[in-house]
């Protein structure tokens, strides 16, 4: 992140509290910056308006590339570059190409998806992202608001919401 951002956040003790708080925030038309949790909370995505991840579509494309790479390469080697007869079978012995074609499909799809996943998450070896509270990876559930880009009136609304929705701790942090 380039510019520093001032984040107002509240910590909740349970995912059920978190879910009802997010619903309450939606009802009050407050713009939630982000929600953090120690494990995936099911039912949160539609409340936050998150669209389904397109990672699996990317995976399909990578897999297709892997499949074509393997199959076309073996075809080229055994029909164009250096045709050899093995065991009296045709040069272009398609059934024998299936295992390697399958393996490379899986390999390309997996590597491609994992690399894409870390890239779009902004994560990777050596990356340090700001952590709002150390207990978010332990037992706290966090709703955060971008207080730096909000008017004073909005910030007080955020604060009022956090208090009323049962946040156990409310803090501000510049990240």
């Amino acid at each position, binding site marked *: 992140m380039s510019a520093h951002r001032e984040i107002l956040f509240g910590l909740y003790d349970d995912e059920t509290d978190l879910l009802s708080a997010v619903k309450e925030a939606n009802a009050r038309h407050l713009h939630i910056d982000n929600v953090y949790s120690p494990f*995936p909370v099911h039912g949160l*995505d539609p409340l936050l308006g998150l669209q389904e991840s397109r990672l*699996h579509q990317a995976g399909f494309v990578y897999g297709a590339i892997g499949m074509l790479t393997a199959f076309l390469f073996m075809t080229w080697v055994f029909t164009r570059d250096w045709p050899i007869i093995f*065991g009296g079978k045709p040069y272009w012995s398609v059934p024998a190409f299936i295992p*390697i074609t399958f393996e490379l499909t*899986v390999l390309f799809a997996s590597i491609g998806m994992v690399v894409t996943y870390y890239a779009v998450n902004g994560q990777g070896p050596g990356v340090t992202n*700001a952590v709002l509270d150390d207990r978010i990876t332990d037992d706290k559930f966090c709703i955060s608001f971008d207080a730096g880009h909000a008017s004073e009136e909005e910030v007080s609304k955020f604060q009022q919401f956090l208090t009323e929705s049962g946040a156990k701790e409310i803090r501000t942090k510049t990240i």
Partner: protein
Amino acid sequence: MSAVISPIRDPLITGHKDYHQITEDICAPSERTPSAAWVTAFLISVAVLSFGVFCILWTIWFGIGTWNLNRTIGWGWDITNFVWWIGIGHAGTLISAILLLFRQKWRTGVNRAAEAMTIFAVLCAALFPGIHVGRIWVVFYFFPYPNTRGPLWVNFNSPLLWDLFAISTYFTVSLLFWYTGLVPDFATLRDRATGVRKKVYNFLSFGWTGAAKHWQRFESLSLVLAGIATPLVLSVHTIVSFDFATSVIPGWHTTIFPPYFVAGAIFSGFAMVLTLMIITRKILNLEDYITVEHVDSMNKVILLTGSIVGVAYITELVIAWYSGYIYEQFAFANRVQGVYWWAYFGMMTCNVLSPQLFWVRKFRRNIAFTFFMSIFINIGMWFERFVIIPTTLARDYLPSSWSYYVPSWVEIGIFLGTLGIFFTLYLIFTRVAPVVAIAEVKAILKSSGDQYAGEHAKQGHTAHDTHSHEEENLVH
């Protein structure tokens, strides 16, 4: 927070844990100084590993003439051990991928350690093809790369090459899957650590924050990786079996090999998972997370796959007899009552008879008995590969070529060495990483914790709260 709580399922997390207690319990082993038991085990493993390395260097220096292979028996302990280790690895992928697709919650207690086991087992397995070709310094000839010999390509029609691709893909995918799951848990360790430890875990956790969108992608990635790892794991042992099945050796050239190998692999892998888990849960005080319920479930898988393997053995015999092909008939008669009858007897006893004891619920839930059985099955599955490989080769078509094979000290040393490598890596893993997937266990707490599910659940604390949420989610 999956909300359907079955009244007949036993809880998978005992001890009335809350989220914080789960973090404390699972992080504890990597945050305290190693126990005397760990240090002793580590020193023994490293010693055995060192002897293995010595034997490998001996092999490389003097050549594979230091092994007792001969012109008739070209594959001995090397390929036996290779297949044995690869098979062991399969349980990890089954638990992490196939059981994820089947939504089996008990996988969360054991998947992390089982996946680690897969990776270490595949490493041990991959060692054998590398050294048994004799000239390890040109081992890169395995791979198709542009070269100055034409370029002369590898034979893409050969099952041995398929195997190379299968195993390297399997290793890579298992590693990616395992590490992706580890990242959130490394972040948990990072946020509890100070000083150098914090720096190390900060590097390992890749900047994980736990944001909602990241968790969504995390789950999507896990599901798709599980979806493609499932056919992958089935393909790997299928292709290993092709190494034998596509040859024209009586006793190997059979169509039953792929399913039979895959079932055997899962069978032996679960036995190794149980061996490791029973020790791990005891030493790391994780009995609340790896419960008798988990052991029971794994024993059921052992019973199923053991029975499949048993049926396969008997089918092989019947089909050999029914084929009317004398070489095939001789190969099987020879396995049962030839010079290596004791290996066949060991295989049948350990793999076919012993798992049948698990029909009894009391045995399935007995930890000491299960531990004993898991060792027994590991031995049995090693015998299976020994029966298939050297004992079949020992009595080939020509009686003048018949031979007998016992391993040399170098071969035994290399096998022991792989056990050393495996346990050394596993012990390091138990120190560095959370042995149980923290985030995944937390995610099933509300449906499988003993205060929510099972007979000791607190009244009025269970299904209703979570149910209403789930129903609302379904509406969305």
